């Protein structure tokens, strides 16, 4: 099962507009075989459009799409062999779990016995063997999600596309499903393109994140690259929190909340004196919200590291390491 998944997707200078609005603007991207690539962005950023163009639901105005060097542009959807997991799962309501999963194989006109074997294999992979005869409306959200996954991977697609597949689940179930998807990716070693607006989810799952805004790729790289060296303020804000501070000497610095250390007196050049406006206890860490020269500063600390005696309206020094500053 593993071999067929290993494919490279190459996208060159893709453009697509709807009624004069540029939904995709000069998108070029290469996704390596076996890579888990997330398209991250706010709604309207073009991430879903990009996915739909790759799937073939929309045709691009310009540019090319290739899988392993084979051009997809003029290939009908039915012949693309791309697996897709829809946001609302799009399970066929009049078919059982088994029939849903078998559908794609029936379209390939495989023998009944082969279909059965592969459906069983796929159901086993998503742990749904006992639910095979049920209908979608008899399943929980998480189970429906797994049927959608099984249905997409059973056809051994050259590429697996997922459009906010966890969007409809509650928070705990999301966490669980994220782990399962990560596990699945490892097991079948698929090339996956995953659309999400949840930066935490993207960071947890992806080898690489492609950040989109207004139809353009803003930055693409590993989670670490995007987090530690964001290209601009937007990227810095989208992944994690960030402070943009104008210092007294006129310098501008960009710093993550966790890069501060707190002291009650000034020990180094690299520190600012803030008045504590609020201390928010969040379990393992505590959030300090302070003001510095009428600017709001956010800093987070391990709760156990924090001096228990500091109070609201205290003045403290937030010290930072020069190496921790983000260069924009």
């Amino acid at each position: 099962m593993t071999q067929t998944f290993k494919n490279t997707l190459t996208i060159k200078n893709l453009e697509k507009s709807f009624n004069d609005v540029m939904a995709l603007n000069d998108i070029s991207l290469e996704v390596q075989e076996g890579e888990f690539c997330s398209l991250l962005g706010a709604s309207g950023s073009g991430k879903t459009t990009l996915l739909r163009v790759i799937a073939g639901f929309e045709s691009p105005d310009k540019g090319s799409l290739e899988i392993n060097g084979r051009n997809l542009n003029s290939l009908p959807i039915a012949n693309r062999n791309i697996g897709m997991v829809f946001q609302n799962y799009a399970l066929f309501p009049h078919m059982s779990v088994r029939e849903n999963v078998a559908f794609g194989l029936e379209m390939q006109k495989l023998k009944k016995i082969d279909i059965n074997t592969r459906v069983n294999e796929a159901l086993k992979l998503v742990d749904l063997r006992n639910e095979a005869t049920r209908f979608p409306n008899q399943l929980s959200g998480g189970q429906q999600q797994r049927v959608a996954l099984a249905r997409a991977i059973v056809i051994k697609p050259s590429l697996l596309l997922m459009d906010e597949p966890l969007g409809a689940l509650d928070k705990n179930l999301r966490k669980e499903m994220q782990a399962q998807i990560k596990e699945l990716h490892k097991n079948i070693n698929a090339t996956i393109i995953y659309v999400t607006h949840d930066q935490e989810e993207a960071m947890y799952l992806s080898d690489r994140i492609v950040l989109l805004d207004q139809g353009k790729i803003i930055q693409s790289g590993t989670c670490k690259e995007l987090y530690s060296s964001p290209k601009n303020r937007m990227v810095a804000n989208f992944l994690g929190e960030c402070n943009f501070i104008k210092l007294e000497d006129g310098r501008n610095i960009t710093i993550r909340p966790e890069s501060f250390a707190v002291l009650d007196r000034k020990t180094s050049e690299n520190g600012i004196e803030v008045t504590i406006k609020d201390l928010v206890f969040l379990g393992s860490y505590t959030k300090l919200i302070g003001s510095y020269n009428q600017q709001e500063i956010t800093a987070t600390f391990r709760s156990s590291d924090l001096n228990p005696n500091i109070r609201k309206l205290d003045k403290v020094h937030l010290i930072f390491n020069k190496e921790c500053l983000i260069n924009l």
Partner: protein
Amino acid sequence: MYIKTSKWSWLAVTPMMIFLLGIFVWPVFSFLMLSFGDSLSAPSFVHYQKIITTPIYRQIIFNTFNIALLVTIFSVIFSYPIVYLLANVSKRMRKFLFILVLLPFWTSALVRTTAWIVILQRKGILNEMLLFTGIFNEPISFIYNFSGVLIGMTHVLMPFVIFPLYAAYKNIDYSLIEAAESLGSKSYQTVKRLIIPLTMPGVIAGSIIVFMSAIGYYITPALMGGPKQTMIAMLIENNINRTLNWELAAALSSVLLFSTLILFIIFQKYFGFDNLLSSNSQKGSSQFYKRKEKFSPSKITMYFLGGLVCVFLIAPIVIVFPMSLSASPFLEFPPQEYSLRWYESFFSDNRWLRGLWNSLIAAAVTIAISLPIGTLAAVGVNEMKRKTRLWLETLFILPMVIPVIIFAISLFYFIAPLRLNNSVVTLGIAHSVLAMPFVFLTVSASLKNFNKNLELAAYSLGASWKTMFWRIMLPSITPGIIAGAIFAFIQSFDDVILALFLTNIKSRTLPRIMFEGVAHEIDPTIVAISGLLITLTVLLFAINALFASERENDPNI
């Protein structure tokens, strides 16, 4: 508050209950009892035995079901292309097409039949066109035979399939189709594996209604069929008017009624009648992703077929106008010379004018009775518990379901001894039975859209139920009441069957005079009247749309 209103709600439904029980249920029941002979203590089944043992009766019953089945099948087949068209065109175009679909349904049966005869007869438009092209050397008999009945009945009953089918089709989540495509499904496979199974509930719902209505049809088979297409309703009429065998007519009516009721119960159980008329009550509006599809051969074919069905639906209605303006004393198309002489002939002939006057009085009586009683019942039923509501709704809808011929004969049987027949007012009262369900349904539909919180808000601001009703509820259900009035008017104004039994030469209505004319030879005046009646229907439609648009709802009814 609720305890109080529940008492009032029973009071509100009482008039309609009494009216229907007294003028509809009881007469029908007593007429049907005739089939068991004179004494109720020793019921006889000879008439039922006679139906079973006489080959000609068996044949007619078989015919009836056969015709109904074929009409149902054709309605379903023709509905798919037009539903595809409806779902894919722009919003404005869709509204226009909906009107095309509904117009034949709301056009008087006589007008439709007249138009079809004009188009299909041996010297009709279609035959002239076919002869002109040279494909055929001899005219084809389209009417006074099996095809005539099928064309006429499919034409009028198709909307019953189109609406539920459209609702089912529109409710298909477009991502399902995309999912199928991404799994390698070709378009014909998508149709076979997804579209048809997912629209099946809508098709079945519509089919039951079509079949149920078709088995009770009288006018269309009588005017467009031949002797071999005799249907049960015609046989019943024949037994009353010619052979004067009331008991046998009652037995035949029981058979017809029983079949109708079984279908109605199945339908009520699985679908619910009130959903059919207000198809916009379907939740989850279209999930259609606006994707511009390229013109594929299959799409072009479907558009073409959809267009043909539209022509089929609208042709008889459109054709009436040029025909009515002809100067010739014979029906011809296209007319050699235009004139208004047939309209003049209508307005200068006392016979026609008296008929028009009688029709207007009957319609006025119908509205005056059915509008307040139906509205009141809708308001009352709306307050009731689900279970009671279902029972009452079923009773209130019953007059729409039971073949009019049975009701007409029953009422005649019931009031003739009292010498109450032959009066236009009686006719209006009888029409009220047919019209009341429409008022009830349209008002109920607007009550469903009425936000219950508005009512509670009014109470919280200190309003009594009475104040709330007049100042809050009534204004917001006015469009429904107006629609109900329009439907009541049309029900009364278009009726032939009740008029055939309940009026005489003095009190006969416009449709009855037309019926007598069409049954013999079509006088061009009838075509002119048809033109006038279609114009009236379109006008009423426009009025309804005007009021309906105020609530920003699809005028789907």
